[in-house]
């Protein structure tokens, strides 16, 4: 489909080819929105199927672009496999492609997992899916953005969709509170980020990531107080969005207050987009200031896995426990980035993708434990799951061991690779804190496993029978099994995904 050569920039018509997936996604989402308008409540299934189709076709389009001749040509010219379009504002490189595929597939999985939950709570509305699709569009734009303005636009598109999703159960007090908190803090974070961007723009004179990087290359950046201030504001903004200590306060409340289906979405795909945003801004744009952000990120990372893991021990609510565990995991993601090496970025990329896969599975099990009229959000709801449903319990066992970083699950390699990155960056002290804290983390994951395997179920229904997990459809069961087995399969053979991440980082940055 792509036969013409690179179009020179003076042409008014930009090259649409690199952005075909996004364009398709936008059109598709618009169509779903329109069609949904004419559907009766009983026909909502159509919206779901169409949304899934849009996601999967978009993923297919991204994958079809993998061996794009453009990328090959670009590689010959610049040595890097990235092409830009729309006045250099939009970039397509292997890293963007892989992250987009991950976002799209994980969101598709999230939709599958959410359906029974939404259905049993009269939340099975078209808006969930269309808002989700818009959020995905925002994430894809964030991943491919090459100017600070576009990054911000993508971020806001994502955030606005997410605010609405969190407030989806509007008649529920806790959900409204969560949405309010999320909105206010999100807006502050966006403001911080925008303020930092404006300072950087003021100093460097450009919004474009590459131009900023070029400016940095020619100046004494670490002496420039303006740039340092801008960097600090940007990191505050990023810290909020990623949810690392000390900007983590919203995470537990929002995770806990949102409907579980939304928590599931919130806790997975947007993390990947946030990772891309950090790479674009800090590594590509402010790469020359690595000394500056390495120090700040070291502190954020160390605080994140110390506070995240220790506070998680005190939680009795499983959604809050997962929220604190997310905070600690984001600390680990920062480890790879702050190492400042290609291998470190690749390690973080591996970490964030596998974390999203694991977290999706973990939240899916929580969804299963909930029933109509009953919200499972306490750790005790896991009690005796192995007696009630051995297979789900086994899947949850895999997810929890993986989060704890115990081999042979994939979580181990994720931790291994980021810790290796910091050790080779001569930050052994950080590695030591990280491993000690992962032992602390192991405690609360083990406690959840203990509840599932070693305790007897005590919930009985009216007739004195053990409560079964919610009935899930075939699609759900197949996906959760695939998800769980992926955790172990990627654990035994992590080489391919790891190599993919290394290749993507090498070719993109």
């Amino acid at each position: 489909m792509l036969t013409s050569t690179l179009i020179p920039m003076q042409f008014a018509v930009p090259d649409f080819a690199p952005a075909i997936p996004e364009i398709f996604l936008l059109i598709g989402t618009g169509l779903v929105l329109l069609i949904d308008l004419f559907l009766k409540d009983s026909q909502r299934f159509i919206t779901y199927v169409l949304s899934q189709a849009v996601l999967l076709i978009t993923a297919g389009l991204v994958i079809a672009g993998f061996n794009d001749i453009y990328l090959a040509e670009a590689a010959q010219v610049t040595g890097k496999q990235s092409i830009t379009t729309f006045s250099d504002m939009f970039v397509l490189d292997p890293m963007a492609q892989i992250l987009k595929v991950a976002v799209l597939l994980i969101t598709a999985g999230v939709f599958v997992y959410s359906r029974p939950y939404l259905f049993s709570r009269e939340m099975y509305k078209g808006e969930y899916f269309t808002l989700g699709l818009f959020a995905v569009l925002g994430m894809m734009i964030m991943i491919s953005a090459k100017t600070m303005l576009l990054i911000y636009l993508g971020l806001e598109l994502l955030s606005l969709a997410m605010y609405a999703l969190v407030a989806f159960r509007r008649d529920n007090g806790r959900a409204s509170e969560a949405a309010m908190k999320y909105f206010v803090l999100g807006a502050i974070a966006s403001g911080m980020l925008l303020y930092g961007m404006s300072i950087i723009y003021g100093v460097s004179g450009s919004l474009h990531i590459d131009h900023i990087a070029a400016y940095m290359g020619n100046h004494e950046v670490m002496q420039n107080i303006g740039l340092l201030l801008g960097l600090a504001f940007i990191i505050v903004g990023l810290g909020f969005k990623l949810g690392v200590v000390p900007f983590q306060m919203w995470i537990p409340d929002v995770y806990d207050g949102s409907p579980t289906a939304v928590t599931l979405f919130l806790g997975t795909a947007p993390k990947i987009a946030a990772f891309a945003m950090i790479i674009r801004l800090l590594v590509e744009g402010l790469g020359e200031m690595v000394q500056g952000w390495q120090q700040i990120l070291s502190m954020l990372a160390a605080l994140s896995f110390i506070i995240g893991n220790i506070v998680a021990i005190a939680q009795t609510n499983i959604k809050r426990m997962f929220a604190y565990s997310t905070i600690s995991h984001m600390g680990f993601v920062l480890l790879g980035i702050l190492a400042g090496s290609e291998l470190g970025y690749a390690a973080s990329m591996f970490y964030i993708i596998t974390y999203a896969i694991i977290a999706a599975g973990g939240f899916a099990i929580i969804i299963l434990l909930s029933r109509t009229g009953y919200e499972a959000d306490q750790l005790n709801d896991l009690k005796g799951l192995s007696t009630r449903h051995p297979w789900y319990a086994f899947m949850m066992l895999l997810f929890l061991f993986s989060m704890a970083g115990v081999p042979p699950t994939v979580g181990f390699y994720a931790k291994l690779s980021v810790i290796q990155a910091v050790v080779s960056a001569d930050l052994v002290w950080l590695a030591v804190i990280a491993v000690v804290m992962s032992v602390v983390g192991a405690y609360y994951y083990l406690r959840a496993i203990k509840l599932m395997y070693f305790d007897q179920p005590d919930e009985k229904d009216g007739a004195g029978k053990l409560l079964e997990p919610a009935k899930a459809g075939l699609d759900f069961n197949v996906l959760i099994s695939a998800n769980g087995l992926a955790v172990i399969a990627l654990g035994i053979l992590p080489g391919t995904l790891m190599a993919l991440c290394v290749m993507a980082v090498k070719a993109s940055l």
Partner: protein
Amino acid sequence: MFDGYLLSVLIWLPIIGGLVVLFAGDKFAPRPLALAVSAITFLISLSLWTGFNSTGYQMQFVELMPWIESFKINYHLAVDGISMPLILLNTFITVLIVLAGWEVIKNKPAQYMAAFLIMEGIINGVFAAQDAILFYVFFEAMLIPMFIVIGIWGGDNRIYATIKFFLYTFFGSVFMLVSLLYMFSQADSFAIADLHDVKLGMTPQILIFLSFLIAFGVKVPMWPVHTWLPDAHVQAPTGGSVILAAVMLKIGGYGFLRFSLPMVPDASSELAWLVIFMSLTAVVYIGFIALVQSDMKKLVAYSSIAHMGFVTLGIFVLFPIVANTGSSEGTLMGLQGGMMQMISHGFISGAMFLCIGVLYDRMHTREITAYGGVSNKMPWFAAFFVLFSMANTGLPGTSGFIGEFMVILVSFKANFWIAFLAATTLIVGAAYTLWLVKRVIFGAVANDNVAALTDINKRETFILGVLAFFVILVGLWPQPLIHVMNDSLVHVIEQATTSKLVGR
């Protein structure tokens, strides 16, 4: 048979067999299936012994494949004279564990058998791995089945015990991981052989040594990080106690030989006093603690700690001897003693726990005071129990004698007082074991429960008989084992006495 991938078969056959047993479920004869898998694995592992070339220290049965290329991690398996006997010990003990759980385990037998088969494969992987990360993966993965075994089939306080077990070992090993990654940053390779050669300064060596000491010291377990072991042993089902005592503890000793001594020889030499001090404390102090136990399993658990003290003592007594005499001559016997002690302790402690299991299955108590005069009702059992107890005290002619004798003998070269303190075990060990025998086996029938005991059946006789055979065989004729390990241990001594400080 299986030329070129024998070790892979030994790792993956039990794991896959375990998964088959697991998914076949309780209805599909889990016991015979598990027995078949473990027996076949054991028979295959025998070809390690027959095919082993005991001349030279070179790694044998090598398998090398890239695994995670971006991180230079390889699927690298091989064995030498140190690891090969331990693999055989593991495959052998697993057969007995499957037999021992035959009638006793009524709750979820398929999962029970599967857990032990999977554990067998993983432990074989620990001993065969020649890539540091592969080793670490197996080292950690081993915790999962054991965690589940203690947690599901354990005693009343099993949850406390299993979480303590998991966290202790996990905590110990994470420091090792950081050390391995640090050494990778120096050597640019995870191959254990390359890590043996990498030059390191004294400070990194000390830190790495300490991290290994935590990792393997918890595993052995050494005083003062031994407290998880009595809990885990007492709460674990019989099979769990057996595999823990007979095989898993050996991983600690193996780690010292494979990692600490060759990788950080200067730090090992510098801090040998610390390890020797810890070992002697284990031998003497823990021996006395064993004396006052009222629970049989706890008593044997503490005696395990004391006996494993001999292993670490035998390994590290090397350094004071070299410091005293200026040559490594005669130190070989210490390492040989340590290795012999590991193998022999595998048989004896396994047998002791199985014996206690036999009693527990009948009486459902492990309190020593609940027994008395068992020999009147269970003469065959009493004969076996007395034999293993004698071996536990180190009676000449049993395997328990060889290792302890060699270690004490070699300790004299280092320091009279080290040998003196080590030798106190002959008295203390005899005291707690024989007192146990006296209270449980001999005397008049204590109560009606004991009076109702029935002697061991054919299955139990077979298990204990096989173990008795090996205890006596190794005791009378240790030469083949010593011969197999000889060259590999000589090589370890060479590595341990060659400084690898940077700039020398």
